[in-house]
């Protein structure tokens, strides 16, 4: 199978900036007012640490250089936030406003180049956070004197607890309430080819979410990195990125802007999620302080699928984060008078719910926050993430062990959460669905159907792996009855799911007709009270069922529901456009699909939210991948079989998606003439109306012999 060819433009990847526009994000010149956004866009992360893409000197303002570590928090309750650590990427350079500062982020190799190209203070630099050895930051700067240059700078938001020297290696430790970050680093002086002074820096981070990381370990690792040297570390880092791209790249032939935006998204997704231990994936990943690193449903439902389909160990680490917090979820359910596990809407270090209970909205109003109490669907979302991982990987060890446990405890929660009427109908009262404009609603279709799916998935897992001793047949029988009794609001006459009980009686305000534009935060435009009383939807709610659990929806119901709900959707959540792109692709409405896909692709690159300076919208990036892989390429893992059912817009010449499915590396290339699947190992495929097992090898599915590209 071919891989992206590093240096196809003749450059030496990682040693000098690439010129390949499909792989590079360029920011120049320096402008303080754009720096907050740039430092997020250019952030480097390796799954363990994330460093802002701030210039080596942040003295010119606009940005604040920062380092954050996966899962290392400080603070308590809703104020819990990611701890900031010592900074490796800094240097005593001078960057005046409007300076010809050029920064090039090479997405292919994960290297950030920063050059001040003219003047007495000219310098050039290359830096990376090693994907090959996560927690290792490496930098080479040419053109600065190294005398007195410290390898580490203190964090800007937290205090240094202790620091010291071990030979030529400095170390620095920052402690939070729960954990700590320790960094050790050393500089190596040299002379560049043109006689200019060169400094190479090697910094090793060790992080401990719940204890005190050992400085001696970091010192040893920093020393080892320095011994290996910049070029060795760069080569192994570059190789690591090449391997990840070989499994995850998406090529779009026919839309250069979307191509770059897609790779930009995949780059940050890859860097955000570690692949060992546990991975706490906050809303902004490791790219900024906003949302305090809290983990939401979007980690499970938007980010995890990309990991499951391209780098299963990262998906497993994300699930491990949930598994290790299962005890707290069990306690939370008991506290609420329920059985099973109740995962928190916002989660951080301990697994307790860290959702704030009040806040000021953008209009300056103090508002109550009910999501922590009422957005129960998070329970099923976690189970869905586990199921997705199992479907893509076939990891039986997980499925029999922690996966089964997640299914059982989440099912128990739902069985205890429902209200069952005498007629056997089951109802879930007082929830918030993904459409957070409507609070405390009954029988939210998304929540109910996800709960139904969750109960059935748990029953299936018990059937496959055997029931644990504490799950007796009567309990399973109850789950079955509850699942069968759960109402879903589907109207057979219209083919529409009612989003929640009473939605159809709300003011029929069509936001697509009354708003000056979309996306728009309709709650700010119209006021929270007005949208609560109207058929104005924040983001995909009913439609999220067609994205996540299409088999739990009535066949043929996507199109009528898409046409009913989309005009009522403000897309006021950054998660919304990508999901609609995916669904419009499935119905073959390419113009509409591409319109929202393009919005999703530039939410950060164009700072559409005005908040990218606080970090990137990692879940939106996961949604973008889902739109391309699930929506357009039509990939879907169904147990041990991968469905391939593509839809290719006429504007695109080809869509090329790489995934891993149950031990096989696959490349699915869709062209207007048909599609082709390459597999490096045997794989069960459902494509072109037939199921086949093949591989290693290639199968062609010509357009004229299949039903592909036909909307269902």
């Amino acid at each position, binding site marked *: 199978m071919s891989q992206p060819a590093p240096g196809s433009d003749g450059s030496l990847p990682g040693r000098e900036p690439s010129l390949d526009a499909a792989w590079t994000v360029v920011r120049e010149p320096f402008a*303080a*007012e*754009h*720096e*907050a*956004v740039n430092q997020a866009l250019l952030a480097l992360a390796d799954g363990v640490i994330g460093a802002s893409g701030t210039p080596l000197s942040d003295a010119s*303002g*606009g*940005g*604040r250089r920062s380092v954050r570590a996966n899962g290392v928090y400080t603070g308590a309750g*809703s104020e819990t936030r990611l701890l900031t650590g010592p900074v490796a990427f800094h240097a005593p350079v001078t960057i005046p406003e409007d300076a010809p500062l050029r920064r090039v982020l090479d997405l292919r190799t994960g290297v950030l180049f920063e050059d001040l190209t003219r003047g007495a203070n000219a310098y050039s630099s290359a830096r990376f956070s090693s994907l090959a050895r996560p927690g290792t930051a490496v930098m080479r700067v040419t053109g600065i004197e190294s005398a007195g240059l410290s390898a580490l700078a203190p964090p800007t938001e937290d205090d240094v607890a202790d620091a010291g020297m071990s030979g030529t290696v400095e170390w620095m430790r920052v402690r939070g309430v729960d954990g700590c970050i320790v960094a050790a680093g050393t500089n190596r002086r040299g002379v560049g080819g043109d006689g200019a002074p060169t400094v190479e820096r090697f910094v090793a981070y060790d992080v401990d979410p719940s204890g005190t990381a050992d400085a001696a370990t970091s010192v040893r690792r920093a020393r080892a990195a320095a011994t290996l040297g910049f070029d060795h570390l760069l080569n192994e880092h570059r190789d690591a990125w090449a391997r990840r791209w070989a499994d995850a790249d998406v090529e779009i032939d026919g839309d250069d802007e979307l191509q770059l935006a897609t790779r930009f998204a995949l780059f940050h997704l890859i860097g955000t999620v570690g692949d060992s231990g546990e991975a706490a994936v906050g*809303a902004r990943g490791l790219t*900024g*302080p*906003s*949302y*305090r690193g*809290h983990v*939401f449903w979007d980690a499970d439902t938007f980010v995890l699928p990309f990991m499951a389909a391209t780098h299963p160990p990262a998906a497993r680490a994300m699930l491990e984060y949930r598994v290790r917090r299962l005890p707290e979820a069990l306690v939370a359910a008991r506290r609420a008078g329920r059985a099973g596990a109740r995962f928190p809407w916002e989660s951080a270090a301990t697994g307790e719910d860290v*959702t*704030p209970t*009040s*806040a*000021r*909205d*953008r*209009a*300056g109003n103090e*508002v109550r*926050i009910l*999501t922590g109490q009422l957005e129960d669907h998070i329970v099923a979302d976690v189970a869905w993430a586990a199921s997705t991982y199992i479907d893509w990987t076939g990891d039986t060890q997980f499925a029999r062990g922690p996966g089964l446990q997640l299914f059982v405890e989440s099912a128990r929660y739902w069985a205890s959460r429902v209200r069952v009427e005498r007629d056997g109908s089951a109802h879930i009262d007082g929830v918030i669905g993904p459409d*957070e404009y409507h609070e405390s609603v009954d029988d939210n279709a998304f929540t109910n159907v996800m709960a139904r799916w969750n109960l059935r998935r748990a029953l299936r897992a018990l059937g496959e792996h055997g029931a644990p001793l504490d799950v007796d047949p009567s309990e399973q029988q109850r789950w079955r009855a509850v699942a069968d009794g759960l109402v879903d609001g589907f109207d057979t006459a219209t083919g529409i799911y009612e989003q929640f009980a009473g939605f159809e009686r709300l003011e029929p305000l069509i936001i697509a007709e009354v708003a*000056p*534009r*979309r*996306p*728009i*935060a309709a*709650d*700010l*435009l119209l006021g929270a009270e007005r949208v609560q009383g109207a058929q104005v939807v924040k983001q995909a709610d009913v439609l999220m069922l067609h994205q996540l659990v299409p088999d739990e929806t009535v066949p043929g119901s996507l199109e009528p529901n898409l046409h009913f709900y989309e005009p009522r959707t403000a*897309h*006021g*959540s*950054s*998660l919304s456009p990508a999901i609609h792109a995916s669904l419009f692709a499935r119905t073959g409405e390419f113009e509409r699909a591409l319109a929202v896909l393009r919005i999703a692709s530039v*939410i950060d690159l164009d*700072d*559409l*939210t*005005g*908040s*990218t*300076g*606080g*970090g990137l*919208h990692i879940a939106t990036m996961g949604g973008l991948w889902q739109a391309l892989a699930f929506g357009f390429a039509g990939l879907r893992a169904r147990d041990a079989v991968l469905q391939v059912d593509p839809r290719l817009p006429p504007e695109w010449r080809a869509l090329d998606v790489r995934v891993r499915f149950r031990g096989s590396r696959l490349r699915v290339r869709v062209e207007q003439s048909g599609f082709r699947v390459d597999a490096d190992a045997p794989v069960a495929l459902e494509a072109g109306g037939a199921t086949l097992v093949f591989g290693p090898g290639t199968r062609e599915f010509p357009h004229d012999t299949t039903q592909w590209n036909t909307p269902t």
Partner: protein
Amino acid sequence: MSVVLAAIDNSAASRPVVAMATVLAPVLGATVEAVHVLEDGSETARGSAGAFGVPLRLVAGDPRAELASLIANDDVVAAAIGCRGLPGSHRAPGHLALDLADSTDKPLLVVPPEAPKPERLRKVLIAMEGTPSRPRRLQRALQVVANTGLGVAIVHVDTADSIPSFSDQVQHETDAYAHAFLARYCAGIEPSDFEVRIGEPHDEILKAAAAVGADIVALGWPRGAGPGHGGTAREVLRRNPLPTLLVAVG
């Protein structure tokens, strides 16, 4: 020596103008001089200057031309002038104040007759209306107050035209937006308050001023933009019970 020029008429509004000039001058490292362009007597003006021990210069001629000329002097770092003849009046600010704002790039403190005189200036609210794509008014005002030692509060008001496209999680979104906004437009400034609001800009600016306990409100003034511009500033001037610092932009 730097000077804050208090341009006073012979009305009841002259006293608060001198009073505010005397609290503004220390934060700018300046002294106060009062000037009165003779039109209809000078006794009230003399009394106002004398009450604060401020020297008064009497000049004759066209008020706009004379004051503009004096404000243009190198030693003048800011000027103060009154608006609205009597307390409680919501009449539009006089042409003279707006004409002077148009004629100078120096900060102009427009003082209403009912303005309370604080012992000293503690906090200035800097207001920014509309979209973040028009930050110059805010940044110019920030430059003016950056080194004064004053506490800085910032209000940013969105209108229906600039409602954000997205608001993901209310409990974090305001902070996220504030973080990005301050990093983008207010680098190096740590405001004591950052108010984001949606509504009529002049309404929200005045509400924010009350909420944060501001002593004065600073606004960008689109110098030379013509009668159709500066609507928010005009409304704030008309209704603000606090002094308004106009900072020229453009």
